[in-house]
């Protein structure tokens, strides 16, 4: 009798363990964040009368992901067009030529709900360029 109860307990334990281990795999995969959008740190400093920050915009096109980047260090630079490589895990690489120095620039990282997360710091500081409305749509006077 005791043997049967022990067997049943062991079987129940095994079933529970299987459920615990397979549950995460059965749960729906978390949908990755949208790779398109506007990512901006740009704002107008009323104190200095300067426009400061970076704004990256990523859109989808028939030829894949494309976008624009604009830096502002006092005055806003010209728009730069780029082609972005973004994989299924939202890992991205952006390459373009700096209009000021003529040097090639490559930025890589991951697109998340929060923004563009990179290993190297954006020139405005920090490793995250936040997902935010375009400065040109809202005209912020403080960092987003």
């Amino acid at each position, binding site marked *: 009798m005791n043997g049967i109860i022990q067997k049943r307990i062991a079987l129940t334990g095994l079933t529970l363990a299987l459920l615990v281990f397979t549950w995460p795999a059965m749960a729906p995969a978390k949908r990755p964040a*949208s790779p398109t959008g506007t990512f901006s740190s740009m704002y107008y400093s009323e104190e200095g009368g300067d426009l400061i920050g970076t704004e990256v915009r990523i*859109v989808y*096109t028939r030829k894949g992901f494309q976008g*624009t980047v*604009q830096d502002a260090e006092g005055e806003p630079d010209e728009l730069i067009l780029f082609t972005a490589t973004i994989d299924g895990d939202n890992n991205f690489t952006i390459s373009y030529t700096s209009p000021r120095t003529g040097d090639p620039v490559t930025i890589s990282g991951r697109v998340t709900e929060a923004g563009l997360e990179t290993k190297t710091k954006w020139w405005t500081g920090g490793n995250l360029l936040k997902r935010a409305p375009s400065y040109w*749509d809202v005209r912020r006077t403080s960092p987003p």
Partner: protein
Amino acid sequence: MIPALGKHIGVTVLVAASILGVWVSMAPAEKRAPVAGTYSSIFYNGDSGDINGTEVRIVYTRKGYQGTVQISQGEPSQLILIKPTIDDDNHITFEFTDPTFGGRYSYSGRITASGMTGRFAGEEADQTFKRGPSYWDTWRTDPP
């Protein structure tokens, strides 16, 4: 008596006209709508799976206004850089060549607080691209 009355009426009319003239010149001028912004008619048609519409984005740069255009007839085109001409009354004109199909486009319209109204050469009627966030920020399923 009658010539005196006529003179009196004449002076009264002159004074009234002067007051009206001064009144009109003193009235506050209509505030100019911001030129920079996002103007879009793009939306996703869930029935057909098509993305349709046009999105124009205007930003300010150290070299004047610049922007991008994206036209979507089923699938969104590549981003196209534009250098629009904008006068003091917010009339806007720009031209570009479609990078995929090579067609030449010429647009003329006017920017107001609510959007950009005008037409591409060859179109029969004006249409309005509403001022607001980019389609790529919101993924609309209805026209904006």
